[in-house]
C-alpha cells in the first residue's frame, strides 16, 4: 500500500498546476519523432511528450510521467489506447479529479 507517488489526471490546463509532479494524460498523436511526440490534449491544446514512444503508436496514447514544464511531460509509461477514444468523457473525469473530487485521487 503506497500512495506517496500518485499520477494526477491532467489535460493541458491542469498540467500547468502540476509541474514537477507525476501526471497521466491522454493525447491524440499529431507528430511523432524518435524522442518526442507532439499531440493534442483532451482539452484540445498542444502538448509535448518527451521520451521514447513505443512503435507502433496508436492514434490515442496515454502517458504517465513527470510534468517537466507547463506544456510538456517526460514520459515513463506509454500505453496505446487505440484509434477510437472518448476524449470528452476522459476530459470530464479529469476536471472532476482536479475539482470537487480531488480528495479521492490525490
Amino acid at each position, binding site marked *: 500500500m503506497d500512495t506517496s507517488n*500518485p499520477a494526477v489526471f491532467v489535460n493541458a490546463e491542469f498540467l500547468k498546476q502540476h509541474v514537477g509532479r507525476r501526471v497521466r494524460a491522454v493525447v491524440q498523436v499529431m507528430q511523432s519523432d524518435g524522442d518526442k511526440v507532439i499531440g493534442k490534449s483532451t482539452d484540445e491544446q498542444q502538448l509535448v511528450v518527451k521520451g521514447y514512444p513505443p512503435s507502433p503508436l496508436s492514434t490515442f496514447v496515454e502517458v504517465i510521467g513527470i510534468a517537466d514544464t507547463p506544456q510538456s511531460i517526460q514520459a515513463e509509461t506509454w500505453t496505446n489506447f487505440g484509434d477510437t477514444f*472518448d476524449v470528452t468523457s476522459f476530459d470530464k473525469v479529469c476536471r472532476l479529479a482536479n475539482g470537487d473530487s480531488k480528495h479521492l485521487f490525490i
Partner: protein
Amino acid sequence: MITSFLLFFLFLYSQNRDSQTLIPLTVKQISEAFQSSDDKTNFLIDGVDVNNVKLVGILFNKAEMLTAVSFVVDDGTGRLDCFRWVNEAVDTKEMEALTNGIYVRVHGHLKGFQGKKQLMAYSVRPVDDYNEIASHFAEVIYVHSYNSRLRKQQDSSFMSAQVPSSSFNTPLKGYQASASNQFPGFNMDGIGGVHKMVLDYLQQPSCLALEKGVHRNELAQQLRVPSEKIMEAMEALESEGLVYTTIDDFHYKSTANA
C-alpha cells in the same frame, strides 16, 4: 429443527447482503479506509461497510507461486498489493494471460493483514476498451457522492423526524446497482411510522403509474390513519422532497422514479 436451521441461514443471508455489494474505489480511498474495531475484516468508507471492491489500474510485479499469484495494482492514486489463488485451470489461464504493465480490472475482497491492506482478487481481467478507465473513475466519484449524501441526509432526517437516538446506529445500506430506482440518496430507516407507511403506499408500482397520484383521503382510508396525521406526514415528506402535489393540493405522488 430444519426450520431453525433455515432461519439461521436466512439471518446470515440478510446480514450479509448489504455488505456484499461490489464498490468501485481508488487505492487512495482504500488507504484511508477506517477499519472497524469489532471485526478485523470490515472497512468503512463514506460510512459504508466495504468488503468487495473493484479497481482499474496497471498491473505490476506479478509473481507466480505454486497455488497463487501476487501482484500490485497501480491505479494512479496509489499502489495496492493483490493476491489471487489459482486452484482451477481456468484461474491459471486467466492469470497467465496478464503481463506487467497492462491495464486490468480487478474485483476482489478487501482484507486487513498484519496491519496492511490487501486485495484477495477473484477476477483479474485485462482492459481492452480504454474508455473503461474514465468510466471506472466516473463511477468511483458517483458512488462516493451517493454514499456521502446518503449519510448526510440520514443525519438530517434524524433531526427532523426526531426518532429515538438508539436508531442512530442503523447501518447505511450503501450503494447498490438498483439505486436509481430508489429514492435518490434517501435512507428509509430515518423515517417515522406514518411517514413510512405513506411513502410505502405511494411507492407501490400501481400508485407510481397514476398520473394524478393519490388523494390524501384515500391514504387515510387505506392506511387507517386519521387525516390530520396524514396531513402532517405529507407536509414533512413534501419538505423533504419525497412527495409532491399533482392536480390539486390533495393529490400526492412520490418523487421516486420521477
